[in-house]
C-alpha cells in the first residue's frame, strides 16, 4: 500500500469538496478498493471515506412508492431493512459475499465499481433504478457502460439509489466456485406493464438486459415462455471457470429459475 491521506466528511457537500482534491478516490466499504491498494495496483493521494456521511445511510420508502437506499448503506442493512419493502432486492443483498463483506460493502461502492460479476448492477438495471449522485440523476439504462465503466464523472458520488418496486422479482446467482461472485446472475422483475431481465457475470460488456426474454415474459410471465430462447456466447466471458458458451447456457437456466421463483 502506498501512503495516502484520508478524509472523513460528514456531509455530501463536504464529500464532494474532498473529491475535488487531486487524485482523490471515494471509499465506500473498501471491499474491492482496499485489496487493490494492498496490491499496490492503485495509488490515490487521498481516500474520501463516505461511510460517515449520515445522509447517505439507510433504506426508506419514497412518496411515489419507490425504495430509496443511501449510497453508503451496507448490503447487510439493505438485506434487513428492505426485506418488507422490496424482498427481491433484499434477498440479493443478503447473498452478496459473506457476512464480513455484507457488513462493510456498500451499494454505492458496488455500483460505482461496476464489477462485471457483481450482484447489485443486475438489481439496479433489472429494476430500472435511478442512480442519484451529488449532481444529477442517472437512469440505470444509461448508467452501466461496460465492464468497470459507468456514467459517473470524475469526483461524482452516488448518494442514493431509487428502486421502483416490481410486483414480483427474483435474483438467481450461479456462483463462480472460487470467488463466489456471480458466474452468471439473472435478476427478473415483473412490473404492471413490463418485465425486465438483467444479467450479470456473463458478458464482456458487463451487466446487460436480455431483451428477447423481456419481450417473451411481458406477454407470458412463465418459465415456459422462455422456451427456445437463448443468448449467444460469442461476447461472453470465457475463463478458467467456464466458457462463453457455458455462461450463455446458464443465462437461460438462471432466467427460468428466477421466473419460477419470482414472488
Amino acid at each position, binding site marked *: 500500500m502506498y501512503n495516502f491521506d484520508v478524509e472523513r466528511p460528514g456531509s455530501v457537500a463536504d464529500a464532494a469538496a474532498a473529491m475535488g482534491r487531486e487524485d482523490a478516490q471515494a471509499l465506500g466499504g473498501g471491499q474491492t478498493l482496499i485489496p487493490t491498494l494492498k496490491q499496490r495496483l492503485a495509488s490515490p493521494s487521498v481516500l474520501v471515506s463516505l461511510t460517515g456521511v449520515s445522509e447517505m445511510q439507510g433504506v426508506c420508502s419514497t412518496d411515489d412508492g419507490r425504495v430509496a437506499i443511501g449510497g453508503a448503506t451496507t448490503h447487510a442493512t439493505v438485506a434487513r431493512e428492505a426485506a418488507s419493502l422490496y424482498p427481491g432486492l433484499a434477498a440479493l443483498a443478503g447473498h452478496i459475499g459473506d457476512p464480513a463483506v455484507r457488513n462493510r460493502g456498500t451499494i454505492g461502492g458496488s455500483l460505482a465499481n461496476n464489477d462485471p460479476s457483481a450482484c447489485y448492477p443486475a438489481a439496479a438495471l433489472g429494476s430500472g433504478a435511478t442512480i442519484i449522485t451529488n449532481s444529477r440523476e442517472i437512469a440505470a439504462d444509461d448508467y452501466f457502460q461496460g465492464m468497470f465503466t459507468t456514467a459517473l464523472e470524475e469526483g461524482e458520488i452516488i448518494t442514493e439509489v431509487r428502486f421502483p418496486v416490481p410486483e414480483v422479482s427474483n435474483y438467481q446467482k450461479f456462483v463462480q466456485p472460487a470467488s463466489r461472485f456471480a458466474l452468471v446472475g439473472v435478476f427478473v422483475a415483473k412490473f404492471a406493464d413490463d418485465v425486465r431481465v438483467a444479467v450479470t457475470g456473463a458478458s464482456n460488456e458487463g451487466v446487460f438486459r436480455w431483451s428477447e426474454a423481456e419481450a417473451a415474459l411481458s406477454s407470458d410471465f412463465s418459465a415456459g415462455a422462455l422456451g427456445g430462447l437463448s443468448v449467444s456466447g460469442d461476447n461472453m466471458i470465457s475463463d478458467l*471457470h467456464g466458457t462463453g458458451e457455458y455462461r450463455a447456457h446458464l443465462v437461460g437456466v438462471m432466467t427460468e429459475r428466477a421466473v419460477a421463483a419470482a414472488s
Partner: protein
Amino acid sequence: MPKDSGIGASSKRREDVRFLTGAGNYTDDINIHGQAHVFFLRSDIAHGTISSVDTSAAEAMPGVVKIFTGADFEAVGGMPCGWQVTDKHGQPMQEPKHPVLAHGKVRHVGEPIAAVVADTLEQARDAAEAIDVDIAELPAVVDMKAAVANSDNKVHDDLTSNLCYDWGFVEENKAATDEAFSNAAHVTTLELVNNRLVANPMEPRVAVGDYARGTGDHTLYTTSQNPHVIRLLMGAFVLGIPEHKLRVVAPDVGGGFGTKIFHYQEEAFCTFAAKACGRPVKWTSSRSEAFMSDAHGRDHVTKIELALDGDNNFTALRTETFANMGAYLSTFAPSVPTWLHGTLMAGNYKTPLIYVNVKAVFTNTVPVDAYRGAGRPEATFQLERVIDKAARELGVDPIALRRQNFVTEFPYATPVAVEYDTGDYVATMDKLEAMADLSGFEARRKASEAKGKLRGLGVNCYIEACGIAPSNLVGQLGARAGLYESATVRVNATGGLVVMTGSHSHGQGHETAFPQVIADMIGIDESMIEVVHGDTANTPMGMGTYGSRSLAVGGSAMVRATEKIIAKAKKIAGHILEASDADIELKDGTFSVAGTDKSLAWGDVTLAAYVPHNYPLEDLEPGLEETAFYDPSNFTYPAGAYACEVEVDPDTGKVTIEAFTAVDDFGNVVNPMIVTGQVHGGLAQGIGQALLENCAYDENGQLLSASYMDYAMPRADDVPFYQVDHSCQTPCTHNPLGVKGCGEAGAIGSPPSVVNAVVDALQSAGKNVTHIDMPLSPARVWAAMQG
C-alpha cells in the same frame, strides 16, 4: 465403554486451548529487537535471460539496509535436492543448480530476483519498485509433453533436455507385463490428469534469521515441518554452517500439508542476510507470494491400462506418467512420482504384473513436491478410476470386481517392491457397504430423480505406504537422508515427564496423543507428560513430520525411550525395596515387589533418581533421562474403502456431495477423536481436489489461479457431514504400538470415489461419459454432458 484416558481415549486436544484463545506462538509472532524486513522482488516473467539488475537507485531509498541479487550468492551452495532417482538406464537424474536468488535466468513466475532488506517492509517494497530489471523473455516451457518432445527450448541450458529422468519400475517386469497385455481377454485404458494443487496452509510461510555476533551462532525461526532437516540441508549444503552453530526453531506452525517440509530460498536468505546485515531479518509471505513460491502438489498426466483375463481377474497393469517437477527440484520432488507412487500401484489387488513408467519434466512453473499423500493419491486415483471404468465396460458390479481381486493373504509381497504386513480389505468393504447403506442407493436415486437431479454412487479402495521409512531401504532408492525418528524422555524429580521429539506437530495433536501412550505405559495421568518439539536446540536429531509417520515412527521412538526409563526406574525401585529388579512390577504408577505388599510410588522413585541418597550409585548413574532412535523395518500400510454419493444438476453441471462414508484400517488408534479429525481434514482436501481446486498456467507460464478469486478452496458448505469409521483394525505387525498412520488417508482415498460417483450419475442418465478430469467444476461436467 470408551476409555477416558490413555490409549484409545478421545482426550481433548490440549494445544487447542492456546490456538483458540490467541495464545499460540507462530513464527510471525516472533519479533527480535532491531530486526529488519526483507521484500523479495519476484519475476513476473516465466522464462527469460536476465540482462541486468540495477539496484543503484533503490539503494539510495529511505530505510534500505542492503540489497542482494543472485551475484551475492555465487559463493554459496544451491538449494539441495534430498533424493536422487536413477533412470531406467541406470543413470542418475538430471539435477540443475537451484540458486537462492535467480542468476542468469528466471525460470518461473515468482522466482526471487533480488531481495531488499530495509527498516520496514513498506520501505523494502518501495525500494524494490526502484530496482531496474532487464529480462529478455524466452518462450515459456509449460506443456510437459511438448517440453519432452522439444529440447531446443530448455528450462536449464546446461542440461541435455527438459527431462529430469525417465524411470521404469520394475524394469525387469516390462517384457512380461507387455506379454500379459497381448494375452488379455480385456484391456481397459484411461488417460487422465491429476490436477496441480496449491497447499494453502492457513499460516503462510515465515522466516526470521538472527545472528549473534558475540558467539557466531545463527538462529533461524521458520514455518517448518522438520527443523532438523532444514538445519542439516541449509547448514551443510547451502550456507556452510555446522549444526553446532546453527539452531532452527519451528514453533507453532499453522498447517503444513507437505509444503512446509522443504527447504526454501527465503530461509537460507534470512539466515545469510542476518549475518551480512548485522541485524535480524524477517520475511512473512503474503498470500499472493504463497501461490507462486510454496511448492505445488500433484500435476501428473497419465495413461493407465488394466489387463483382465476371461474371468475378470486382473492380470497386468501398465502406466505411463508425465510428472511435472516445475522449474527446479524441490527438496523431495523426485521421490514423489517414483518411490511414493510406483510402489503403490498394486493397490489392494493381487495384480501379478505391473510396470510403471514416469517421465519427470522441467517446466517454467513453480516447483512441485509432496502434498498431503504425495504420490499415493496419484497412484490411487488412476488405479481406482481404471478399475471403475473396467467394471462399466464389462458390465460387472464395481465392488464385486474389486472384491474378486483383493489381496486376502498377508504378508503380501507386491510386484512393485513392497510387502504389506497386514490388512483385511474384505472387512473394510463389508463395513462400508453396511455403513453407507449401499443397498438403499436405488431408492435414494429415485428420490433424487423426482427432484430433477442425477444421483451417482462411487466406491473405491485405497492403500498407502506410510510410517516412512526404513533408512537402509530408502538409501538404496536414492534418499540422501535417513528416515528414523528420535525421542528423549526426561523424567523430572517430582515425577513429571517431558518428551523431546524430532516429530513436529502442526495440527496433528501430538501434544495430546503422545502423552496418552506414556500415561498408559507408566500408569500416570496424561497431564504429567509434556511434549517438546520444533527446536533443534532442545530435541534430538529427528526427521520431522510427513508421510503419516509421527506416531508410527516418532511414537515408536518414544515407546523405546520410555521402556528404557521404566527399566532403569525398576532398578532404582528394586534397590530401595531390597528386591531384584526382575521382581519389580509397575502398575498404575506404583512399583511393587511381586508377591509382596512392598511398594513405592512413581514419584518416590523419580525423586530418588535425582536425590540419590539411598541409591545404587556404584551400579547406576543418577538421573532419569533416556533417548531412543527408532528406524522402522517396513512401511505401514493403512487401507480403506470409501463411498461417495453425489447429485448432479443436469441443467448446470453442478455436483453436490450428498453423502460420504470413509472406512479406514489404521491399525491401533490412540486418540479416536483426533483420528476422526484427521480423516475429516483429508476428505475436505480430497474433495477439494476432485471438485474445486485447480492450479492453472497459461501458455506463457502465467499463473491463472493466483489468488482465492480464482483458486477454489473447499468451504464448509462444499462438504457433507461425513461418516467415518476406523473400527476395522489390523494392527501393524512391526512397530511397538501397532499403529499405521492416518494423516493422509482422507486425501488419498476420496478423489476417485467422487469422480466415480459423478461418472455413475451421468451414465445413469444415458450420457456417454467415461471420465472427466478434475476438478469436476460445473462447467466441465456440463461440457461433458453435451458430448
